[in-house]
């Protein structure tokens, strides 16, 4: 069975380490915040200028001056810091953020990512995504392995305009966990009940498969 959005988030949460500063993109990445293991501490960075993002506010706590990068109302945790956009991107571009999790339309075996523009459709902009992929020490991409037509999103070369080059290290899809290195996707884990054959079939780029591929623990 392919993973649900929540299960993808649970698997990504296993990449978190104690003391990590983490930036979570919109969509599935946002869900990762719900599954931070109890025995570690992580600090969430929101690129509009908040380090130490907390949960959504209660009705009483709602404050127009407190929002996240998705423009949603939000709270700050104890010990949070608030700063301007230039400082925020100094953290991001300067490589101080330990892990960035974001979605994508396509990823290729060189670690290139396309996530912001589909020619012919209205382009709303890249927001902070290009800075995040250029600057993070570690980038995990979450997406479905193939699109609704069954076409692979794991390519030998991205077809859409890029967000960044040679930057994606790890991908968690609804079918598998893969590492990108040496110009290939390396299969690390498969979703429970999903066969290596199915993953192979839905991976258009070069896939390296080890002898034993464990199932994910989700």
């Amino acid at each position: 069975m392919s993973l649900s959005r929540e299960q993808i988030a649970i698997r990504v949460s296993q990449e978190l380490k104690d003391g990590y500063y983490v930036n979570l993109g919109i969509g599935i990445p946002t869900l990762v915040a719900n599954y931070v293991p109890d025995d570690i501490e992580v600090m969430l960075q929101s690129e509009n200028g908040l380090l130490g993002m907390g949960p959504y506010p209660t009705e009483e706590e709602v404050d127009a001056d407190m929002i996240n990068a998705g423009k949603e109302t939000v709270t700050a945790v104890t010990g949070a810091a608030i700063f301007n956009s230039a400082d925020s991107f100094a953290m991001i571009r300067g490589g101080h953020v330990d892990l960035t999790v974001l979605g994508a339309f396509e990823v290729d075996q060189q670690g290139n990512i396309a996530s912001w523009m589909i020619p012919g459709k209205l382009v709303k902009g890249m927001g902070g995504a290009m800075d995040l992929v250029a600057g993070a020490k570690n980038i995990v991409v979450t997406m479905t392995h193939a699109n609704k037509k069954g076409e692979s999103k794991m390519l030998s070369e991205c077809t859409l305009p890029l967000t960044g080059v040679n930057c994606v290290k790890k991908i968690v899809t609804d079918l598998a966990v893969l590492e990108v290195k040496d110009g290939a996707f390396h299969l690390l884990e498969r979703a429970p009940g999903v066969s290596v054959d199915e993953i192979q079939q839905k991976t258009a780029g070069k896939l390296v498969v080890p002898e034993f591929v464990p199932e994910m623990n989700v």
Partner: protein
Amino acid sequence: MAGFDKVVDNYEQAMQGLQDGMTLIAGGFGLCGIPEGLIAEIKRMNTRELTVVSNNCGVDDFGLGILLEGQQIKKIIASYVGENSIFEKQAIEGTLDVELTPQGTLAEKMRAGGAGIPAFYTATGFGTPVAEGKEVREFDGRPYIMEESITGEFAIVKAWKADRYGNLVYRDTAMNFNPMAATAGKITVAEVEEIVEPGELDPCHIHTQGIFVDRVIKGNFEKRIERRVTRS
């Protein structure tokens, strides 16, 4: 003698000198921390052919979006737009020129512009459509693109508190692009929630120093929330 007193009494004085064709830099992130009254004044003035530099462009009936209605904006430099239908229509019809810029690059363009640095190199956008036509240079084996900084004839920002000398303090994430925008305007106008006397703000806790600010006006803010999300 006005000395360093930057406080003006009305919006007309606050935006005096803004003319057709000028570049206007605006602080704010979405609808958070935007100079609502100054934007409304620009609409009233019907200043046209503006180049607007701002992370976003408001929504149809609020924020910078209200300047789209009368086609007052010729060009927008932003990182994320299209939260409004008029914007979409004008962008598709080609009456509005849109220059999409990565958010961090946009912040740095304002910061550098205000700091007298004409350009800088960044890895952001290398190998993407953003890099087209830009100089590429390698440092330590990694390619970077050259980005030019931005200044404007006017900058409009929103702060929480100001003293009469134009020292500004922002509140929570309403800070966002405002401090950089404030440095990048030839004339910088701050619309604030509260004006206090010099000395009332802790000198160590000033976010934007009065030297960057030319005019201060006390505004009345609606503070509209774009996406109200709560937990139970």
